[in-house]
């Protein structure tokens, strides 16, 4: 990985020399406090790689918990798989988005893949109470919130991978449309289109289940 990072760094430098302005137009400048560590990784610094992974760990773990559920027993396995994927994908990262969003995207993809791998296996908590109780919510609100999460996660399993990824990054992780576009490396309009389709699928799903209409229509 460190060798690939070094090679990628050299190629990036040569490309920057050949067409810095065109490259700048292609890649929007993103403020990223982890760029220093990334540069250290490209120089072959193993400590920088360890520090970078430690910095990416919390947002990636949060992302996995959003997709899998906080109490899911596979969270740690999926997290380790995502960390491995990040380590392998770092050489191909060219700074189109922030490093944290890059890690969040990989965590999202890994978690979605894990969910789809175990398709057919009953949900961990069929009652819908898939997460720890939030102190700020009373029992009815907590039940409704948990029900919404379950519906959305089931929908993520059924949506096309691109729509599921875009929906997760926007609605579950709270990234802006531009940030999602940078992370997924697609145009902004493509992200908007995917979000539109995902939301339509969500509404359709709620419409098919009368018990869910209250969950979304009354509270949303």
């Amino acid at each position, binding site marked *: *990985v*460190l060798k690939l990072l070094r090679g990628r760094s050299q190629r990036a430098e040569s490309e920057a020399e050949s067409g810095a302005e065109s490259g700048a137009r292609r890649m929007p400048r993103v403020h990223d406090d982890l760029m220093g560590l990334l540069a250290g990784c490209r120089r072959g610094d*193993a400590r920088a*790689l*360890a520090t970078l*992974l*430690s910095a990416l*760990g*919390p947002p990636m*773990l*949060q*992302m996995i*918990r*959003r997709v899998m*559920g*906080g109490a899911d027993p596979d969270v*740690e396995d999926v*997290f*380790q798989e*995502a*960390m*491995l994927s*990040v*380590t392998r994908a770092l050489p191909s990262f060219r700074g189109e988005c922030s490093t944290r969003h890059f890690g969040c995207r990989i965590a999202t993809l890994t978690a979605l893949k894990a969910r789809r791998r175990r398709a057919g296996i009953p949900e961990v908590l069929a009652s819908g109470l*898939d*997460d*720890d109780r*939030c102190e700020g*919510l009373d029992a009815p609100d907590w039940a409704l*919130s948990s029900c*919404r*999460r379950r519906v*959305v996660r089931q929908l993520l399993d059924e949506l096309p991978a691109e729509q599921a990824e875009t929906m997760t990054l*926007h*609605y*579950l*992780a*709270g*990234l*802006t*449309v*531009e940030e999602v576009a940078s992370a997924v490396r697609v145009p902004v309009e493509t992200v*908007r289109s995917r*979000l*539109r*389709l995902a*939301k*339509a699928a*969500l*509404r*359709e799903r709620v*419409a098919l289940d009368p018990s869910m209409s209250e969950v*979304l229509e009354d*509270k*949303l």
Partner: protein
Amino acid sequence: MKPTRLPCADERVVLARRGALDPRAWQDFATHLTECVDCRIAWRLNADFDVSAASRPGDERLIARGVKRALAPTARRQRMALRIAVAASAVLVAVGAASAAIVLGSRVLTAAHEGETRPEPRTHPVRHAQAGRTTEPAPPAPAPAPAPAQTPTMPAPAPAQTPTMPAPLPAPRPRSKLAWAKSYGDQAPDVTASDATAPRAAAPGLAPPPHLMTPAALFAESLSDRQQGRVEDAIAGFRALTRQFPDAAEAKVALVSLGDLLLGAGRAADALTAYEGYLARAPAETLVPESLWGKVRALELLGRTREAEATRREIARRFPDFPYARPGVGAGGSSP
């Protein structure tokens, strides 16, 4: 269902979640949520899933394990690369050692084989005479156990069989006389040495070819070689005769012939040893004048003119009728 268009492009939901709105913007955002279904859905879902993403006790250890697991392949690869390098080095060393052993073994075998067939290299006589050397250097050792260098001082008896020298096997077919004589001469004591007068037993285990089992046959063979110009064969044959049959009459005569051949080959020191060997073993026989004359020529070639002149006077004194003893006859001639 008709797709719903996102009316809010300013991402106020995200800005509100990140705390980037001032109080007035918050009021506008709250009003907007009551009107915009899309923003309301996004706001509600973000809040719902924030609960799932909340940190839990033990997250630090979980993250540390993940980092360690992610870094493990790199470290494992480095260790594997180190192991491969060490293994490759060990293989290279083993291959090198094996190659060296093979080359060394083949050289030993080749040298042992050449020791049986290669003639002794000739040495330029004038060069040694001009250098005034008292000893003639031994020829380059072709075998691990070379023949001991012959010196005028007549060294002690030659050492016994060298362990590295392969013992001659019973010949399934008749070997050439030169090969037998060379192999014999490398191991048997030299009767031309200073103590050549003492009778010696033949070296055990070394039998000449069947057709050379008698001194007369060996002498005749060597003489034939000499007449046909095979000087090295003749030298080897005479030398073998003097060593294998030291007490035979042919062996004494062979010493003079050997001296002549060695002198003609430029090996003056060896020739001098042969002449002196004859003079020591047959001090009153018929070839003494020839031996003395050969000694004169050898001494002159070796640059020992005083000894040569003394020997010349001895010839004149003991054998006044000897034609080469007359004044004006130089050492360029050969024995009659």
